[in-house]
């Protein structure tokens, strides 16, 4: 009898062990109707629309100059880039070789960006290579580092703070990703963006960037960029892919003088 009881207890324990290893119930996705319909404060504005970088705004589409003090490793790239530029050469033009531009540069390409804001998420689709950026707004934290898949556009979470949408982005990939020519982004890159609508009738959008990356520069690198709302049909985004056979027809991406 004692023997039977022992077997029963062992079976019960084994069952409990199986139950403990069952996968957890998945949390709701940002487009789940029951997540979208949760009560939330009304956002102060919507960035839904098509936007185009304001080339007349100081700094235009570039994040420098001025530049922060670079780390020795980043400085090597920067010096090599300036040397190539002085010689009329292109330095590591990874974008020209179809690598993604990545955040933050994807935001300021001279192409339209379509933005769709929902209560739980903002989707940004750049007309430049159809690059997709997802900003989760449903209150989740950053992705567990053990589960994170590093990307060029990073892991973005956003929340409302007074008159601004504040977006925190980490989780970047550490290769072929540049902030400007010769300034590499590493896997330590951390970006905070304060997004506001300015100008008449919300026709302009400004983003204050605070970029830190202790592997590439010291301290905070602060830059503000501006976009214009564009409503014309021919400014909509379209399907765009960087294809090897296209690049074979684009001579400046194929130049033997390019510094790889």
């Amino acid at each position, binding site marked *: 009898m004692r023997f039977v009881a022992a077997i029963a207890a062992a079976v019960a324990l084994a069952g409990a062990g199986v139950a403990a290893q069952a996968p957890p119930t998945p949390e709701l996705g940002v487009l789940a109707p029951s997540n979208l319909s949760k009560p939330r404060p009304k956002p102060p504005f919507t960035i839904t629309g098509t936007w185009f970088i304001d080339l*007349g705004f100081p700094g235009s589409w570039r994040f420098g100059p001025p530049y922060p003090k670079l780390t020795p490793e980043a400085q090597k790239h920067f010096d090599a880039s300036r040397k190539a530029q002085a010689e009329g050469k292109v330095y590591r033009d990874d974008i020209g070789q179809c690598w993604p531009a990545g955040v933050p540069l994807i935001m300021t390409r001279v*192409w339209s960006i379509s933005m769709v804001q929902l209560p739980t998420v903002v989707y940004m689709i750049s007309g430049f290579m159809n690059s997709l950026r997802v900003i989760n707004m449903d209150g989740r934290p950053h992705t567990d580092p053990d589960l994170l898949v590093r990307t060029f556009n990073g892991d973005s979470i956003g929340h409302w703070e007074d008159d601004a949408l504040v977006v925190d982005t980490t989780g970047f990939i550490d290769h072929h990703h540049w902030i400007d020519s010769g300034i590499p982004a590493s896997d330590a890159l951390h970006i905070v963006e304060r997004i506001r609508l300015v100008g008449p009738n919300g026709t302009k959008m400004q983003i204050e960037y605070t970029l830190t990356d202790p592997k590439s520069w010291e301290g905070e690198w602060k830059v503000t960029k501006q976009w214009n709302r564009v409503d014309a049909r021919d400014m909509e985004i379209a399907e765009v892919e960087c294809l090897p056979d296209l690049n074979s027809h*684009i*001579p*400046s991406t194929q130049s033997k003088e390019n510094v790889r």
Partner: protein
Amino acid sequence: MKALVFVSAVAFATPVLAHHSAAGIDRTKSVTLVGTVKQFGWQNPHSWMEVDVPGEAGVVTTWKVEMTSPAFLIRAGWKSSTVKPGDKVTVKVFPLRDGDPGGLFQSVTLADGSTLTERAAIPRPPAP
């Protein structure tokens, strides 16, 4: 046969909507190509054209010309049928610095004498 490539200096640069660095383009020079369209690509992110240009010894050189996206070409008056293989054209380009036969598109003059560029206004909202 007389060479049908002419080089001239230019005083200003034309902005371009490129997907890559244009540091390898010499914007201080303009090269005029007189030739025949070999191919025309109407596609994103760049349209492109190949132009066969006859040289001094009768040798034909194919020039690769990179252009902006169809959306901006449409704003500048282009259609996908504006040029086609076999058309006689005069094309101006900013040349590559490396000396290879290629460059950045400036303008094309068609057989009927009309000229098209790729200049299109950067969109801005109306003044308040």
